[in-house]
């Protein structure tokens, strides 16, 4: 972490802030950046093409059937909702706990949160048989339906997350507007519009800080709600494997875990491509985030034990078939890989100080993220293959589920879309909030403008 020791005098402080702000100004894409965006665009284009096919020919382009009527669109939706919880973890929970090292992480985690929740909303429309009737949700919405609860909380969360991203961004946009040279006219104009006429007055900072405090308090119950309600889409049914009172807490715990992993991975990649960022995302940050990830993984382990071993101890009639399939059946390789590689191994590695160095922790975070995606696959699909009544008089294709190319493509496109949104944000906006870093240490950010006026 850049050691923001309180400067000797104001001039020093001003110079320091200027330098920091310059450090984090958005930069043009290099070769790697362009290739990355190119790859994402290709994936997205292919996904859009497949979605058009799906609109034309219906959901029959998927591997779904009357048996497995929810597939990877839904598990991907749950994944997105889970990832989006990180915004509230880093921004709100750590803020209210007054954790000092969080400041450089707030913006990236909020960007991840906003992108993820936007694509969660999008992928759920992709899953609909009649996306043309999406407005029925508002015309005929029934408050008794968990889907309507989900729509309400997801939209609330999206709004609060967006504000939690935007308010702290104002001083940074204003800085870009006032100090970024050699940028295209449109980009300057964009900063002018988006900065909402920010004048860097102390009073404005006070308002923004107050807003952040209020939003941070507000977002915590909403964040818990989005993933709890998402778990209720399953837990409100009778199906073995979903009919669990543990689901809400289990989902929330898993979400915090994957969200923390996503921030670590983002930190590592940003540090790789923006050389000066290692002064902001320091080894200490990786260490701290590593500890946090271990803690969250232990909580998740606790709920996993409750979710699988207790029913596994009883092996109750209808649940037994489902559990056997997970423990020793066709889903066993995926189930155990997810548990071991996506949870146990990261816990063990991150318990050691050496394991919390940037590179190993990055690898562990990637494992956690991939594990989390497949974990959600395991939550959604195997249960659907074990209804109460035996699978009789159904087509052979309805006795198992394997996603089609179209499904993979559309799902990949949604993931690529979220990554592209994050990438573009990093391309055009400072990804580290210098003023928050400064204010946290009682260095008033507005002074840099006074200095400017003096000159």
């Amino acid at each position, binding site marked *: 972490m850049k050691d923001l020791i309180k400067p000797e005098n104001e001039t020093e402080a001003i110079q320091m802030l200027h330098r920091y702000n310059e450090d984090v100004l958005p930069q043009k894409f290099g070769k790697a950046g362009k290739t990355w965006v190119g790859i994402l665009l290709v994936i997205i284009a292919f996904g859009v093409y497949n979605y058009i096919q799906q609109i034309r020919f219906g959901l029959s382009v998927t591997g779904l059937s009357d048996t497995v009527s929810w597939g990877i669109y839904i598990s991907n939706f749950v994944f997105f909702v889970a990832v989006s919880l990180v915004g509230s973890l880093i921004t709100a929970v750590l803020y209210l706990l007054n954790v000092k090292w969080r400041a450089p992480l707030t913006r990236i985690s909020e960007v991840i949160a906003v992108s993820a929740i936007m694509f969660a909303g999008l992928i759920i429309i992709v899953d*609909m048989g*009649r996306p043309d009737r999406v407005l029925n*949700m508002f015309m005929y*919405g029934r408050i008794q339906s968990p889907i309507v609860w989900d729509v309400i909380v997801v939209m609330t969360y999206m709004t609060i997350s967006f504000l939690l991203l935007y308010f702290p961004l104002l001083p940074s946009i204003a800085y870009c507007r006032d100090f970024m040279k050699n940028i295209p006219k449109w980009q300057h104009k964009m900063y002018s519009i988006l900065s909402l006429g920010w004048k860097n007055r102390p009073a404005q900072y006070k308002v923004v800080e107050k807003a952040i405090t209020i939003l941070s308090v507000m977002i915590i119950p909403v964040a818990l709600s989005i993933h709890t309600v998402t778990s209720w889409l399953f837990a409100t049914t009778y199906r073995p494997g979903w009919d669990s009172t543990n689901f809400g807490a289990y989902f929330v715990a898993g979400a915090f875990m994957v969200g923390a992993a996503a921030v670590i991975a983002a930190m590592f990649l940003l540090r790789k491509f923006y050389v000066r960022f290692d002064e902001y995302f320091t080894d200490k940050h990786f260490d701290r985030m590593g500890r946090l990830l271990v803690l969250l993984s232990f909580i998740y382990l606790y709920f996993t034990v409750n979710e699988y071993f207790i029913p596994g101890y009883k092996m109750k009639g209808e649940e037994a078939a489902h559990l056997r399939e997970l423990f020793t059946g066709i889903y066993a390789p995926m189930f155990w890989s997810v548990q071991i590689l996506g949870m146990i191994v990261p816990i063990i590695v991150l318990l050691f100080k050496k394991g919390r160095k940037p590179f190993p922790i990055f690898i562990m975070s990637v494992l956690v993220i991939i594990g989390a995606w497949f974990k959600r696959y395991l939550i959604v699909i195997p249960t659907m293959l074990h209804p109460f*009544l035996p699978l009789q008089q159904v087509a052979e294709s309805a006795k198992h589920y394997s996603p089609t190319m179209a499904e993979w493509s559309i799902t990949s496109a949604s993931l690529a879309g979220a990554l592209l949104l994050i990438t573009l944000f990093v391309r055009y906006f400072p990804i580290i909030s210098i003023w928050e870093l400064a204010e946290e240490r009682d260095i008033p950010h507005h002074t840099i403008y006074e200095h400017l006026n003096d000159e």
Partner: protein
Amino acid sequence: MSNNKEDLEKNQDNDSGRREFIRLGVLAAGLTIAGGGLQKVFSSEPSVSGEKINVLTPDGKVVSVDASHMKAAESCCAAPSSEARQGIPGKKYVMVIDLSRCKDAMKCQKACQKHHLLPSQDKYLKVYKMQDSPEASPYWMPKPCLHCDKPPCVKVCPVDATFKRSDGLVLIDNERCIGCRFCMAACPYSTRTFNWDEPIQPENYMDMEYSPESSTPRKKGTVEKCDFCPDMLKQGKLPHCVSACPNGVYYFGDANEDTVCNGDETVRFRQLLKDKAGYRYLEGLGTEPSVYYLPAVNRLFPFEERSSNPS
């Protein structure tokens, strides 16, 4: 439905006559439009178009009929979406399925597929081979929609597309359904099917006014299921599966009148349940189905494995 046995039987006779008629039409359509069926009846239209259509009669003869003699049967009794949410006044429909009589004849399913123009992969009604424990003998269990009084599917529907009527029927408005398939996940009885692609159906069906009471014309991207044939009930007739069953497995009737009829006999609903130890499938879930089962004891037919997939 009437509480008079004679009336019921008369209805039954009328119905079977009509069924023959419809069957002819359906077969005709089956020839003209691949994969689909079509309810057509002969009209007295005298003009001749010259275009011939081959029709298969119920006894297997192919007859050439002039196209102008074919006409779509109007669905006389299916109410449009706006009215279909009202149940038939004073009724509370129930079904009792006597497992001891079922020999897997599958006539019920065939009639159902035909009436609802269903392709073979979509089945509103299934006959399951069940075996309660390894020692117990297997038996056949027909399962339509159970039309629960506490329907989990209706509870979770976000747009009120599937609804419970005052007469006990759980129906779907396919013009409102958004295709989220939450109801399919919520139904513990695997009752619901989904139109994964554009349903194949006769063209003149597509122009018909949609009715949740006939579940036609079918709509892409929406959920369907057994509807207890409300268009038949409105005419005082039995659902197609009930009248098609050769073994009197299905009793259908009105709990308010305490009468159920299987086409051959009309009996007291509650007495039947008492006498034959009626139960409801997965009673423990608390969904309170409108369909009751009579246990497979003293069976009329020995259990025989199904030779091939009858669908």
